[in-house]
């Protein structure tokens, strides 16, 4: 049923419809509204016998999830930013153990400097944690991807992160069709764990593994990720049959990527998450002016759909990757994966780091990227809307005096005196 609803609330109601047995929560913005709503739904008895646990840290949130999932319970939690970093050790443990936990990451910048606003440096830091990572482009897909995530996680016995841009999606009111529990039941069967702690059939889980089998265990984690590349399209198709829409949102292609005017596109903008909306507007604008622009979104970042990306981009002349995180000292993160997909194909590619710490990515700035890409003035790696004057002033201060003081505070002071 269509309703005006906040993104977080839509996610919470969708997760509730998936009937988790255990939900554990530790507050961190901008994820809080999701677990707040789940607490209420649990208390109202809307999620069966679901147990809602307020833990004392994200480290414990993921640890509770590990214990619960290993006992055969469908388990969910949500986090963001520093919270995701605080649970990194059990995050890796969960994937290594092959536990099908589903977690929402309400994408938010990582400090220092402390910043509560959106970028994707948090989930990007966990790209190699062994979790599947799905990125939502809007609130409908943010909600729907959770249903897909539970099914996928449980089929593969692998944890799944659903990443949605903090505030931009979590706190936005939109018209959403929150999945009906009856339909969810049709799509998502009862959880049958591959491994379970059961006194009737005792097993040891989490034993020490030495060089004789560690590589093989890790290989199987990789194998399962590759298997997900086959299963995601199948599940997406099934999802579409049950819910009459695609889980990946508009322009979805097999749940792996989204394709917008790619057929004849000469300039292609690539991105993950909510910025795709602005990017598609920019594409429309340029198309009106006769420029053959297109956009590709990556829904499944882990596993990375190398073949689909290659097929989608190989005819492009210029590629611009818009990234909400980067690898300091090197450059782009998503773009290096795209380079791998396009290996052997010579296409000019630029990486633009945008929207860090909540800086708005405007239609104007995106549109300019297309122009710059076309006229060859876009460098290989750049920061969108970088305040060059602010940066240079601090660099100059560093040269003039050894004890130049705290950097972030200097910049804010300079801004204040403008």
């Amino acid at each position, binding site marked *: 049923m269509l309703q005006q609803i906040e993104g977080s609330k839509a996610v919470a109601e969708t997760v509730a419809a998936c009937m988790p*047995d*255990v939900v*554990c929560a530790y507050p961190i913005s901008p994820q809080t509204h999701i677990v707040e709503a789940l607490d209420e739904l649990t208390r109202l008895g809307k999620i069966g*016998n*679901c*147990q809602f*646990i*307020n*833990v*004392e*840290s994200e*480290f*414990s949130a993921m*640890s*509770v*999830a*590990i*214990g*619960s*999932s*290993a*006992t*055969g*319970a469908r*388990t969910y939690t949500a986090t963001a930013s520093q919270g995701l970093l605080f649970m990194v*050790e*059990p995050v890796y*443990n969960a994937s290594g*153990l092959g536990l099908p936990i589903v977690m929402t990451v309400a994408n938010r910048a990582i400090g220092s400097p402390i910043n509560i606003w959106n970028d994707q440096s948090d989930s990007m830091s966990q790209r190699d944690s062994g979790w599947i990572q799905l990125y939502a482009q809007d609130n409908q897909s943010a909600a729907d991807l959770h249903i897909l995530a539970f099914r996928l996680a449980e089929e593969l016995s692998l944890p799944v992160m659903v990443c949605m841009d903090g505030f931009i999606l979590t706190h936005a009111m939109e018209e959403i069709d929150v999945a009906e529990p009856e339909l969810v039941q049709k799509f998502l069967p009862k959880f049958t764990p591959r491994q379970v*702690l*059961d*006194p009737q*059939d*005792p*097993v*040891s*889980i*989490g*034993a*020490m*593994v030495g060089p004789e*089998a560690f590589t093989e265990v890790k290989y199987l984690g990789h194998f399962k990720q590759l298997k997900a590349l086959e299963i995601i399209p199948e599940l997406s198709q099934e999802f579409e049959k049950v819910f009459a829409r695609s889980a990946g949102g508009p322009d979805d292609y097999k749940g792996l990527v989204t394709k917008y005017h790619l057929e004849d596109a000469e300039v292609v903008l690539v991105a993950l998450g909510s910025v795709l909306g602005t990017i598609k507007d920019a594409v429309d604008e340029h198309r009106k002016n006769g420029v053959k622009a297109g956009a590709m979104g990556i829904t499944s970042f882990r596993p990375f759909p190398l073949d689909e990306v290659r097929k989608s981009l190989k005819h492009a002349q210029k590629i611009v990757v818009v990234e909400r995180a980067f690898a300091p000292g090197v450059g782009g993160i998503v773009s290096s994966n795209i380079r791998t997909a396009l290996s052997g194909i010579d296409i000019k590619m630029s990486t633009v780091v945008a929207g860090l710490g909540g800086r708005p990515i405007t239609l104007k700035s995106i549109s300019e990227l297309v122009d710059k890409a076309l006229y060859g003035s876009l460098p290989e790696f750049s920061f969108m809307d970088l305040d060059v004057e602010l940066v240079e002033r601090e660099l100059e201060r560093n040269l003039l005096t050894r004890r130049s003081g705290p950097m972030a505070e200097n910049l804010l002071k300079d801004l204040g005196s403008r």
Partner: protein
Amino acid sequence: MSTPLKFYQVGSFAVGNRLLGDDQLSVQSRSDRTNSLTSGHRACQGCGEALGARYVMDAAMAATDGKVIAVNATGCLEVFSTPYPETSWRLPWMHSLFGNAAPVATGVAFALKAQGRSDIRVVAQGGDGGTVDIGFGPLSGMFERNDDVLYVCYDNEAYMNTGVQRSGATPPAARTNTTHAVGANPGASFTQGKNLPKIAMAHGIPYVATASVSDLHDLEAKVTKAMSIRGARYLHVLVPCPLGWGTRSEETIKLARLATESGLFPIYEAEYGTITERKKIRKQVPVDEYLQIQKRFAHLFGPKGNREYLNAIQAIADRNIAEFGLLGDAE
């Protein structure tokens, strides 16, 4: 039996005491014990932790009709029991990380609750490092929420698995590989340390107890009692470590007994934050007697010894004896 037996009547604390009636026999002396931590594991000779864990788990199994799920922190117990493809655990057992045995056990407990399996119980276990240091915050959370978990700490007073380094439970003056017995202040510092049983009591949880491998009958009884209670329970067991303490492997039980008889390790039980039982010292011994047979305290003895430190340690024992009322006839 008209007169209740006192164990010292036979001069021993032997758990399989033949003078006992059938209902008083220890779990470990029964042929139907579960051998939850079975033989063949890789613990050192004389390992107090292996002994303690075996008694704890068999008693927990006996108290629950064999329905226990065990969660283990990283540490000696985890490493020596599961060098796959071998496992010594004959019950469902899980190891996740060093610092998260308590919350993983919480997860197991809530999963069971969601599934309506109130018959299956959860026991988490870790060493002192995993308990008083790296797992402390999560353990406190488990206490505060009163999650239905028995957490057992096997305290050997240092990080033995990583090669004997100081933990928050290492006693003053003890030599470890991060508190060398050299310099002006040899060994571990005289700080407050972290008295986890008392901290657990401050959480007001239903049951807290200390126990020792020198009195295995008492250890079993405490596990049995703990399993009859719901909510967060904490059991702190002193387990001497021949490797880390520099002691003879056949003296593990003796050392555990001397720790108690000197007053350095009080044995007691508490319910909802109030002490309900304490084990009286049978024959008080000076701390010297306990310390001098341990190489980790060797620098306190001999011609270059340190009477000042020994006096300070004796003062700690005396404070314990006064605080817990450890002298006098058994109540």
